């Protein structure tokens, strides 16, 4: 059942107005107006989203609100129009994007209080919100791609926000390029789906229609699912394309919270949940998703345990947590993956904002070795960050416990014992590196530089209020997805079920997992909880009880520590394997070699062209033979090209 709901367009219109206002009038209107307008448009969008959500709840399960916009692309029978669709899945995403987004916009007004480029900042931030909402509200795959690349653009602009630092500028570009490499996969995935349908004279990329024609997609399901997942590894920072995210931390911290933790980077998880019918037809692709997810979770967690930069720890933690979400959707527990996406948006958004509060208080210091003992100076920051840490460490009853538990439960229940085990080990690592962060930052003696120490202060109310709001959500946000039999049970899962657990008629597909924890899973929960507690204990032993022990350990295990500290040398490996060969081919082989060395040399050699000043006209006399040679070589090049094509066909 669908219902036309024109107000959906307002969810996009408000941020769009914000973009235009800040872009054209922000500078003239002044800081006060921008600080008001920037967050206000997101709050308004959130209000509309809530009203749409209320309307949706009144409708039967599986219903959707729609709002057609305008005709977009058409060529021959192929046709894609712009339109919005607000069903249970996009409802969750829209509420998270506008809700958490609004809090982070508000926080930004405080965080950027001393930056002169506030208008540009809010232009980008509003544009991000707009793009992200286009992504989650799109009713077809191609429109989703507008949002998909749009958020990438905003990420690029915001990472390089302080562009006069060349390193920041580089990191911004790196993020965009790595994402574009992923987008190749996304684009080819779209083409594969459209091509498969075209063969049966079906021309659409509409989600509902794709689902209806799922049977036609079966032959290409695995390929398309893998291609789209490759796109997701870029946007959602999974192996092998995660390398941009740690470097993205040079952007303003609220940006890290909103874009590089709470919303944009989870777009890949959303995409897979949205295309669940496709993935269910491709069990091999789902195995890949689950495996890449949990391996990324583990891999990133191991790097996080040795990093000294507070934001860098959180960045690897984000990669790791998205890995969990991928594990969830990969084993077919789509609603569990989206559930963790939501709770993660609360607690990871909060963690970043708290780290921002710390950095703000310390005037830009990010090195945890130069922190310590901050809990008394920054009480609100400390309390809220501790709550977020308990949530990410999956300690009951905090939000992360329920969502992570659902994922691990589903992994075990679907027979992926090894993946489950790796997930449990990662849960231990997670609580270890998070409590290491807490101990190094807030406990012990202050290692803050005296100059910074003097100005140390808790953040203003405009920044602490969002912290408190997110802290509340980090505590209670998980209660919507309780284990079965406990009060209302997994209400979240039931809400999403008609969208993500809807069996396909007449198509061979993997069984959809019922994520309703039973008695057996209590044991599983105890195991993962024990891992988490063990991690906390280890962190306490190493960073509180015996502070000197870590250095000795690092010295004893120098090789391992070095490997982790240097992040497995992945950046260096990519540089040698990809970047340098590419630049060599570009500059040396093609530009100097083929273009100037061969083709142009032949042209000049014909004597048809004269050298500068017209002195070489005499060459024209010997030009005839060379002209033949030129034409002959031209033909030869064409033949080579033809065989290139033959070979590739």
């Amino acid at each position: 059942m669908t219902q036309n709901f024109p107000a959906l367009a307002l969810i996009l219109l408000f941020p769009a107005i914000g973009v235009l206002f800040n872009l054209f009038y922000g500078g003239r209107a002044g800081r006060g107006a921008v600080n008001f307008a920037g967050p206000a448009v997101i709050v308004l969008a959130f209000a509309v989203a809530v009203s749409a959500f209320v309307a949706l709840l009144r409708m039967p399960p599986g219903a959707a609100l729609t709002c057609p916009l305008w005709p977009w692309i058409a060529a021959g029978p192929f046709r894609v129009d712009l339109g919005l669709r607000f069903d249970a899945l996009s409802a969750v995403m829209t509420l998270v994007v506008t809700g958490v987004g609004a809090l982070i916009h508000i926080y930004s007004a405080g965080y950027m209080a001393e930056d002169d480029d506030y208008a540009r900042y809010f232009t980008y931030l509003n544009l991000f919100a707009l793009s992200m909402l286009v992504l989650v509200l799109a009713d077809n795959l191609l429109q989703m791609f507008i949002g998909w690349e749009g958020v990438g653009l905003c990420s690029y602009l915001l990472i390089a926000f302080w562009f006069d630092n060349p390193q920041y500028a580089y990191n911004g570009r790196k993020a965009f390029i790595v994402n574009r490499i992923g987008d190749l996969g996304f684009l080819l995935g779209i083409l594969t789906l459209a091509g498969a349908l075209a063969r049966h004279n079906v021309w659409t990329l509409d989600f509902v229609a794709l689902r209806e024609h799922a049977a036609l997609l079966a032959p290409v399901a695995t390929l398309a699912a893998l291609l789209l997942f490759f796109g997701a590894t870029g946007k959602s920072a999974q192996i092998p394309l995660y390398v941009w995210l740690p470097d993205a931390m040079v952007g303003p911290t609220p940006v890290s919270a909103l874009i590089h933790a709470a919303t944009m980077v989870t777009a890949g998880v959303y995409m897979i949940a949205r295309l669940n019918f496709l993935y269910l037809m491709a069990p091999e692709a789902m195995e890949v998703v689950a495996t890449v997810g949990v391996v990324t979770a583990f891999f990133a967690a191991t790097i996080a345990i040795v990093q000294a930069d507070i934001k860098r720890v959180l960045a690897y933690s984000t990669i790791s947590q998205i890995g969990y979400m991928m594990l969830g959707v990969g084993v077919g527990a789509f609603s569990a993956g989206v559930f963790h996406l939501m709770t993660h948006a609360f607690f990871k958004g909060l963690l970043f904002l708290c780290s921002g509060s710390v950095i703000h208080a310390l005037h830009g210091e990010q090195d945890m070795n130069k922190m310590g003992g901050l809990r008394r100076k920054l009480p609100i920051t400390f309390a809220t960050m501790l709550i977020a840490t308990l949530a990410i460490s999956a300690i009951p009853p905090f939000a992360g416990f329920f969502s992570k538990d659902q994922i691990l439960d589903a992994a075990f229940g679907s027979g992926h014992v090894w993946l489950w085990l790796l997930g449990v080990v990662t849960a231990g690592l997670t609580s270890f590196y998070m409590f290491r962060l807490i101990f190094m930052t807030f406990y012990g003696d202050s290692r803050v530089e005296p100059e910074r120490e003097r100005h140390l202060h808790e953040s203003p109310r405009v920044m602490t209020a969002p912290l408190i709001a997110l802290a509340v959500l980090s505590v209670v946000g998980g209660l919507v997805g309780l284990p079965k039999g406990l009060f209302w049970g997994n209400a979240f899962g039931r809400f999403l079920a008609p969208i993500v657990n809807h069996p396909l008629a007449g198509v061979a597909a993997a069984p959809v997992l019922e994520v309703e924890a039973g008695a057996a899973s209590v044991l599983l929960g105890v195991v993962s909880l024990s891992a988490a507690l063990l991690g906390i204990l280890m962190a306490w032993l190493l960073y509180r009880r015996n502070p000197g022990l870590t250095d000795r350990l690092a010295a004893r295990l120098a090789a391992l520590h070095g490997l982790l500290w240097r992040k497995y040398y992945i950046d260096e490996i990519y540089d040698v394997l990809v970047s340098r060969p590419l630049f060599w081919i570009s500059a040396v082989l093609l530009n100097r070699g083929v273009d100037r060395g061969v083709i142009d040399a032949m042209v000049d050699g014909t004597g048809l062209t004269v050298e500068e000043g017209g002195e070489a006209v005499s060459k024209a006399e010997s030009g005839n033979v060379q002209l033949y040679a030129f034409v002959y070589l031209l033909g030869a090049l064409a033949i080579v090209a033809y065989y290139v094509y033959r070979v590739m066909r």
Partner: protein
Amino acid sequence: MGGFWLTGLIFVPALGALGVLLQGDDDSVWRSAFIYSLIPLAISLYLFAIFDPAQASYQFVERYAWIPEFGISYHLGMDGISLFLVILTTLLISLSILYSGGGDIEMRPREFCFMMLVLETGLLGALLAVDLFLFYVFWEVMLVPMYLLIGIWGHGRKIYATFKFVLFTMLGSLLMLVAILYLAGAARAQLGHLTFDLPDLYRVSLPPTESRWLFAGFALAFAIKVPMWPVHTWLPDAHTEAPTGGSVMLAGIMLKMGTYGFVRFAIPLFPAVAIEAAPLFLALAVIGIVYGALVAMAQPNLKRLVAYSSVSHLGFVMLGIFAFDPQGLQGAIYQMLNHGVSTGALFLLVGMIYVRRHTFDISEFGGLWKSVPIYAAVFMVVMLSSIGLPGLNGFVGEFLILLGTFLHSERAAWIAVTGVVLGALYMMWTYERVMWGPITKSINATLKDMTAREIAVIAPLIALMLFMGLYPRPLLDRMEPSVDLLLNRVAAAQVRLDRQQISTVAALDLQARSGRIQ
């Protein structure tokens, strides 16, 4: 229909060119040239408004005998394929003149405007001619002003660049002329009279070998113009040395004469050969896409970089054309327009910075956003359009081309798609080096931001990027009938080819069987 709309469109600029010569001081030269260029722009927009979107064949047709003894007629018409290229031409000429009058051209403005307006006549004539001889005349007419624009108002190695430009183009043009004359001769043999009229020539059917040679004559001329790899090397030189207005017209319209030539002449005249040659052209196109992008990346000179990016972008256009399906071809035509808009804008922007700094050297810049934020922001939007960001114009064309190609040859699409990453790579790397980072040269700290005139030049192009990216339907819908008509010709040839193949196979089969029986 009827009327003299198209004649007016073509010859108002020529009259304007004469009018400009009569003007007194420089200011009135620029003013009058701009006004003369606005008239065809207004006409073309009016024609867009009254254009019948449902009609596939030529509209606003004018047809008069010109040299009846040789069957040459003055035959003009506009269809959904030429409509938008005409508008693009009239728009870019106006913007180029407006821009050039703002300080870019200080030497001999009268002659400059004269050349630009004559160029417009040549371009519009070539786009609207339905008679091959008439087309050829306009084709040559547009070469002369471009040659002089580069030679007189260019910079650096302009003489080398003009020679290279003329010789490459002449080589192709001459072969095309031979092909045109031969074709007319064949028409006399088959139809009983000499004719250069396109619809008549469609009815001429030639033996495969002759068709192949004639197709080759047309194709080489057009491929040089596009330019396709490996006959592209005139382009970087011509672009780099041309004045900004010349570069805008060269990239914006003149290159499209090559791709337009394929669509209008080479393919519909010899559809069977075009089908045979498609793999070759697809291969050259994907090579051009990747090669152009990789070589662009290595350029230290801003203008040269944009020039090589054209090789890559036009590769996409050729790919779409030779996919022979509605998505590919409509995407290709759309991409011609996109390239005109975004590369036109890029050349204008590069020209603006040249006026301030007298260099195209990327290493001379850095940190420009600090001193010229409006310029930097505009450059960002243009760059995003150029790299095909969804939501802007470039994506619509690129996606349709990739889809059309994918349906025709999956592997070609797989290779071509890498151009999307490489395009982002060289453009963003350049942007970073020019606009971001610290200001390394003190002279860059005091640059003046865009003037009102410069903003007025760029603003319509930015508006088009957004409009064409978000609401392409008014354009795509008007192209569709004409594109379908062309594809029907190709499809009919395909059917004939298949039938021939079947009958050949059947004949061989029969031979084999009879051999066994004997």
